[in-house]
């Protein structure tokens, strides 16, 4: 699988890399592959945007792995923002009967905690400040 890396490997650029990852690309991946891809990106200082987000179980594991990787002065963890789930769809009886976590898709933004700060969030908008460093 090609890994998303800085196009210019020679000089670290002073920009912020943003990886937009399609639902299609995530579909074929196992939970730990997804988590690795996200955290590798975040460790490199990238902002990772997932078109379809993660399932609650994957989110729970992402928190767990993130905690294991936090290290003083190197990595403080992640900032993660998703749109609140739309109730009507998620907890619908049909959705539950079908047992599908994938009924909902929720755009998810993940970045290094020390570089991304959420300025504002509501049902339809996420506004974040991203700093370099």
């Amino acid at each position: 699988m090609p890994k998303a890396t800085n196009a210019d490997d020679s000089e670290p650029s002073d920009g912020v890399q943003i990886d937009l990852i399609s639902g299609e690309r995530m579909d074929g991946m196992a939970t730990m592959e997804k988590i690795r891809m996200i955290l590798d990106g975040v460790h490199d200082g990238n902002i990772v945007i997932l078109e379809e987000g993660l399932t609650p179980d994957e989110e729970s594991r992402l928190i767990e792995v993130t905690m294991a990787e936090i290290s003083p002065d190197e990595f403080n963890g992640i900032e993660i923002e998703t749109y609140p789930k739309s109730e009507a769809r998620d907890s619908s009886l049909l959705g539950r009967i079908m047992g599908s976590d994938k009924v909902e898709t929720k755009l998810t933004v993940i970045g290094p905690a020390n570089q991304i700060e959420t300025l504002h969030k509501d049902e339809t908008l996420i506004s974040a400040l991203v700093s370099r460093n």
Partner: protein
Amino acid sequence: MGLFTELKDSISRVTDRLFSEQEPKRIGIYGPPNAGKTTLANRIARDWTGDAIGAESHIPHETRRARRKENVDIERNGKTVTIDIVDTPGVTTKVDYEEFTDELDEEDAIRRSREATEGVAEAMHWLREDVDGVIYVLDSAEDPITQVNTMLIGIIESRDLPVLIFANKTDLDDSSVKRIEDAFPQHTTVPLSAKEGDNMDEVYDKIAEYFG
């Protein structure tokens, strides 16, 4: 409710339990750091067993290990509901040891943050494997709509666990229970002050109703 009478009855209640089919339900107390989880766990434990569960602190991440109090018998309307209380470290997606350097020296701050990260991982694990119900504690003076709260409630819902939301710190001027009810309309919100002991009767009624 007469704790003294409670104690006198405890022997017969132990006997009852020996013959009851049901294992105590394990109730996890979750929520963000500083919401008052340990204060609540201690109050429940003190009210029904006479002793506490762990240290409360204004410094976040005082609770770095999930702590358990077993066989807490809560008596409601002549019936006894037995629960194990699990007080968990506050869940977060980030821990910066520099948050602690105001109050602790660097070495202790680093140790505290390392323990905090282990504790959060452990709390997530408990949620996936080991709890039968959840009390989600929020500081009602703070905005409840945070990513961690939304994500955690989503995780809890996906596991189909019974959940009660506790709007704690109603004694504070800025407290707004409505803000919490509006944020999580799909769940029952119970207002309380764990510190002052306000509204504990409703707290125990709801615990018995949801987790009994």
